[in-house]
């Protein structure tokens, strides 16, 4: 338990001192994860909404597949995207390998299913309540999906936060496609992995605490926002 006290002390010192390297790593981590969440939301929520309001043969299979994709192993996703983005691969000419762009891409692939699956669940529950009234008003599938998305925006925030949590926490995908390059693609999780493998466990633990604190702050902020908006709109 000495390590924990050590680590806590190191963590506080790092944060208070405003260590430039740490700030750079934190900034990049936020940039990558938040970008990935934005992209994944733009992809995942429409898919979830479409699944919630439409009925078609094979729909149940699609839902099962989507739920299963939530459990995609990050390291496998990283490997596949590495092979796609490698110069020897089909998308090599974009030169995206070992850039933050590749990391955003990998994390988007990882969390889009989470947002889509959780979104679908929330929206389908809402659809049970809204369906008859909206059909009565002659609202078609597309408009109904948009209406649900807007009306359920507070519940959908939870799905988005789940995606953010997964993105912030993962290390396998960003390590492979980013290359953990100092100053370019080194994020919090890959730094923790590096320091651990160097044997500097107190520092790794300290960084872990900083990461958890940041994710907590993001979630708290989202919660306050949701609360305030809910009180206004009911």
């Amino acid at each position, binding site marked *: 338990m000495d390590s924990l006290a050590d680590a806590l002390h190191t963590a506080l010192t790092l944060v208070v001192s405003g260590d430039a390297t740490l700030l750079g790593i934190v900034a990049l981590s936020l940039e990558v994860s938040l*970008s990935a969440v934005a992209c994944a939301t733009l992809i995942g929520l429409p898919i979830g909404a479409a699944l919630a309001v439409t009925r078609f043969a094979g729909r149940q299979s699609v839902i099962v597949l989507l739920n299963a994709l939530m459990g995609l192993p990050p390291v496998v996703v990283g490997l596949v995207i590495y092979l796609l983005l490698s110069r020897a691969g089909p998308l090599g000419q974009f030169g995206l390998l070992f850039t933050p762009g590749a990391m955003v*891409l990998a994390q988007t692939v990882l969390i889009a299913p989470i947002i889509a699956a959780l979104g679908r669940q929330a929206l389908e529950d809402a659809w049970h309540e809204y369906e008859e009234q909206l059909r009565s008003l002659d609202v078609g599938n597309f408009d109904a999906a948009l209406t649900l998305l807007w009306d359920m925006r507070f519940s959908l925030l939870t799905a988005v936060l789940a995606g953010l949590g997964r993105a912030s926490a993962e290390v396998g995908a960003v390590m492979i496609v980013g290359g953990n390059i100092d100053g*370019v693609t080194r994020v919090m999780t890959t730094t923790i992995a590096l320091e651990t493998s160097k044997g500097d466990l107190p520092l790794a633990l300290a960084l872990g605490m900083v990461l958890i604190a940041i994710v907590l702050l993001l979630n708290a902020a989202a919660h306050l926002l949701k609360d305030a908006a809910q009180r206004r709109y009911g």
Partner: protein
Amino acid sequence: MDLIQVAAAVAVALVVAPAQAARPFITVASTTSTEQSGLFTHLLPGFTKKTGIEVRVVAVGTGQALDMGRRGDADVVLVHDPVAEKKFVSAGWGVDYHPVMYNDFVLIGPRSNPAHARGRDISAALKTIHATQATFVSRADRSGTHAAELRLWKMAGLAMPSVKGAWYRETGSGMGPALNTASAMNAYILADRGTWLSFGNRGDLAILVQGDPRLFNQYGVMLVNPAKHAHVKQAPGRRFIGWLISPEGQQTIAGYKVRGEQLFFPNAR
């Protein structure tokens, strides 16, 4: 999904690429042990200050570094496995090969030393470890260190995998994680001196055998062959190699010390 991926990649690239295109850079594939020794943090700023070229190091195992070279995902490869490097060049993947520096491997083990491995003779030490079936941790990850370890076993007349047993633990990992494992198991392990000197989680481990010329670890640098990959940044790549083997580069290498000890010994020709 592919179309979405491409669209996303392009969209992101449009946003991210301009921000990064500001400074010229080269991608160097090197090894985890080299990076973890801290050499690059000491070495690279001098080059960047002089030339304005940023050096982006992707640190992976030697096997993966050479693979990166074959795929064209790196401009320069800097590893420490002369046999593999020679093959790389003769197969046409690399050009402009130069030896750069060497460090050495050391045999690490528990202070209690149940196998009584000590001194300057690595073959004798490995023989007693095998004889006493003392726990030995191997990286088993196609790295330069792993390749060296296998050669040393062979030289001692104990070629792997035929003499493997429960005492021989293969972790498939980098130097640091393997050292962590050895520390936790109180086992013997072959490590490069650089990583060991910077390693913080030693537990009860210490250097038991060192100084045997067979523990010599040679580093070589190559340019990925532009004939195979037209996009390779030849000019800045060659500048980097040139700087590494120049007196200035070589002196910078020699100047890197951990806990007062020099880690790497420049020997460019």
